[in-house]
C-alpha cells in the first residue's frame, strides 16, 4: 500500500520534527526504511505500529542516540542529536540509578540538562511523585518508575517531548493522569511525539498519527481523517461486476473485495448513488451497510498485522483482501 501523506501546510518554522528518507539498517536487516514525516509545532503526534515496526528505533534517531544509515532527521531546525536543543525524552522505559532516590536521580539529570534545581520539585509534583521522592529508585513500582521517566523528560521545560510508550505500567488512574498531562503540555505550546500500542489512547490524545509497519510509513494523517475513511460494505451479485461499477464511480483506490463482499471507502452520502448505479447495471444488491471504524481497525487493516489486541470480529485484517486491477473499471 502506498503511504498516504497529507501535504504539509504550515510554515517551515512550524515543523518541529522532519524526517527525510530516514533509513536504519543493522547488517542485512532494515529496521527503518525510507521514512519521511513531519511533526508540527504544538501538536500531539502519535506514532503507531506493531511490535518491531521500528518505532523506538525512529525515536532513538530523533534523539541522536543512533546514527541513520541514510536520510536525515531534523529536530527544532537542527540535526537530530545536536546538543542545546530543548528536547525531553523517555525512550524504551525509564533508566535510572537504583541506589539513588527519585529526587537525587532528577538532581543528577537536572545538572546534565542545565535545568535550575527548582525544576526538580516542580516536575516531581507534576507526576505526583513528591511523597516518594526521597525513596530509593529501586523500591519504586513499575508505574512510579515510568512517572519518574516522564518527570525527567520535563526537566528542561522542553519545546519537544518524545515519549515512548508513556503509559506502560500505569494503572487506569495513571493513564488518565498521563492523558491530562499530555493535553496540558500541548496546551502550553509544547510539541509531543508519543508512541503507543494503546490505540484508543492515541485516538483520544493525538492530533495526527503516523502508522508504520516493518519500518515503512503506511499513513501519516490526522486522526479525524483516518477515522473518516469510513467503510461501506456492499453485498452484491455478481461481485466482480459490482466492484467494476463502483470503481468507475469512485476510483479503483477506494474499492476492494474482502471475504466475498465489496468494501468501499465511502460515507453515507455516497450510499444512495452507489446503490443506484449498481441497480442500473443489473447487479443484485443484497446488502448495504456503513461501518464506522475505530483507529484500531484502521490500524489493523493498514499494517495487516496482529497486534496485542484481538482484531474485531467484523473487521478481520486484510488476509483475503484484494485490490482491483486498474482495468476493472466500468
Amino acid at each position, binding site marked *: 500500500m502506498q503511504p498516504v501523506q497529507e501535504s504539509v501546510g504550515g510554515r517551515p518554522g512550524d515543523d518541529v520534527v522532519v524526517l527525510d528518507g530516514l533509513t536504519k539498517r543493522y547488517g542485512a536487516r532494515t529496521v527503518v526504511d525510507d521514512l519521511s514525516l513531519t511533526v508540527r509545532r504544538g501538536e500531539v503526534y502519535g506514532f503507531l505500529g506493531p511490535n518491531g515496526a521500528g518505532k523506538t528505533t525512529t525515536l532513538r534517531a530523533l534523539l541522536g542516540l543512533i546514527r541513520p544509515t541514510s536520510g536525515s532527521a531534523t529536530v527544532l531546525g537542527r540535526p537530530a542529536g545536536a546538543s542545546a536543543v530543548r528536547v525531553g525524552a523517555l525512550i524504551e522505559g525509564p533508566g535510572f540509578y537504583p541506589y539513588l532516590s527519585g529526587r537525587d536521580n532528577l538532581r543528577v539529570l537536572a545538572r546534565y540538562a542545565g535545568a535550575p534545581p527548582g525544576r526538580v520539585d516542580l516536575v516531581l*509534583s507534576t507526576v505526583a511523585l513528591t511523597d516518594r521522592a526521597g525513596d530509593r529508585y529501586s523500591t519504586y513500582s513499575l508505574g512510579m518508575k515510568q512517572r519518574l521517566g516522564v518527570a525527567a523528560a520535563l526537566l528542561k521545560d522542553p519545546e519537544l517531548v518524545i515519549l515512548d510508550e508513556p503509559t506502560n505500567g500505569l494503572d487506569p488512574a495513571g493513564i488518565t493522569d498521563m492523558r491530562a498531562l499530555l493535553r496540558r503540555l500541548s496546551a502550553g505550546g509544547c510539541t509531543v511525539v508519543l508512541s503507543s500500542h494503546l490505540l484508543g489512547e492515541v485516538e483520544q490524545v493525538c492530533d495526527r498519527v503516523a502508522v508504520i509497519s516493518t519500518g515503512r510509513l503506511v499513513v501519516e494523517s490526522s486522526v479525524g481523517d483516518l477515522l473518516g475513511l469510513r467503510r461501506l460494505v456492499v453485498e452484491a451479485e455478481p461481485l466482480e461486476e459490482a466492484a467494476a461499477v463502483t470503481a468507475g464511480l469512485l476510483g479503483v483506490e477506494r474499492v476492494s473485495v474482502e471475504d466475498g463482499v465489496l468494501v468501499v471507502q465511502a460515507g453515507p452520502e455516497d450510499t444512495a448513488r452507489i446503490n443506484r448505479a449498481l441497480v442500473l447495471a443489473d447487479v443484485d444488491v443484497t446488502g448495504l451497510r456503513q461501518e464506522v471504524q475505530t483507529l484500531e481497525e484502521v490500524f489493523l487493516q493498514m499494517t495487516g498485522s496482529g497486534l496485542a489486541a484481538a482484531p474485531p470480529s467484523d473487521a478481520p485484517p486484510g488476509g483475503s483482501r484484494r485490490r482491483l486491477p486498474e482495468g476493472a473499471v466500468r
Partner: protein
Amino acid sequence: MSTATQTRTPERGAPSSRTRTTGSLGAIVAAELTKLLHRPATWVLLGLWPALQLVFSTLIPYVSYRRGASYEGSPPEALLASTLPDRLVENTISGLPLFGGALLLTLGALLAGSEYGWGTLKTLLGQGPRRLTVLAGQLLALVVVLAGTVLFSFLLTALVSWAVATGAGATVDWPSAAQLARGFGGGLLIATTWGVLGMLLGTALRSTALPIGLGLVWVLAVENLIVNVAAPLLGAFDAAQAALPGVNAGSLVAALAGDDAELRTPGVAAIVDGGQAAWVLAGFLVLFTGLTALLLTRRDVT
C-alpha cells in the same frame, strides 16, 4: 499525576539562543560526583585499597617485629624500619600495581558498564549533553575521587607509621615535600590508568561482569605469568613486558620508593626506570581515554 500543577514555568517564552540547554562541564562533574559518592560500591572499593595497603605494608610487618620474627633472613629491626615514616611513599602506594589496581579497575568498569546495564546512558544523553562532555565529566569525577583516595591513603599510612615510630621509640623522619608530591602524583597516575582501563572495558563490552572478570584476570594473573613465566623463557616476552601497564606501574612505585628500599610487595619491581614508567603509563592513560571516547562517540546507543 496532579492535574492542578503547572508543568511549565510561567516565564518560559520563545527559546533564546543564550538559554543554557545543557549542563556545563562543572555541573556534569558535580552530577558524576553525586553518583559516585552515593554508590555503596564506590566506598567498598575505595575503602578496601587503603585498608589492605595498611595491613600488608605496615600492620603485618609491625606485628611480626613485635613477635621477634624475621623476614627472609632480615632481623626484626629491618621489619620495623620498613614501617617507619621515612618509608611513607612506598608503604602508601605499593599496592597500586596489583591489588589496588584490580580494585580501581573494577571501579572504572562499574562506572562505565553500569550506564549500559541500567539504561542510564540514554537517559543522560537524552538531556542533551555532547557525548565527549559526558565522558570528560565522568573522567574528571573519577580523578577527583581517586585523588581523594590516594590522599586518604597517605594520611592513614602516615598516622599509623607515626604511631608505630612513637610507640617503638624510633626516629620520626618524614620524606621530603618533593618526594611526597612525586609519590602522590605517581600514585594518582597509576590509580587513574587502572580506573580508565576499567572504563574502557566497561564501555567496550557495555556491561560490568565481563569487563571486571577480564580486567582482574589481566591485572592479577596474565601480567604475572608474562613477567615470571614467559619472559625468562622467550626473548620476545622479555622485551614485551616492559610495555605492560602493571609492570610500568610496579617500576614507577619502585623508583618512587628510592634505591635503598626493600621491595617485597608483589608487582613492585624495577623492571624499567621510573621516568620511562611514568611516560608509558601516561601513554596508556591517553590511549585508554581515546579509545573510550571513540567507542562512546561512534557507536549507537541502543
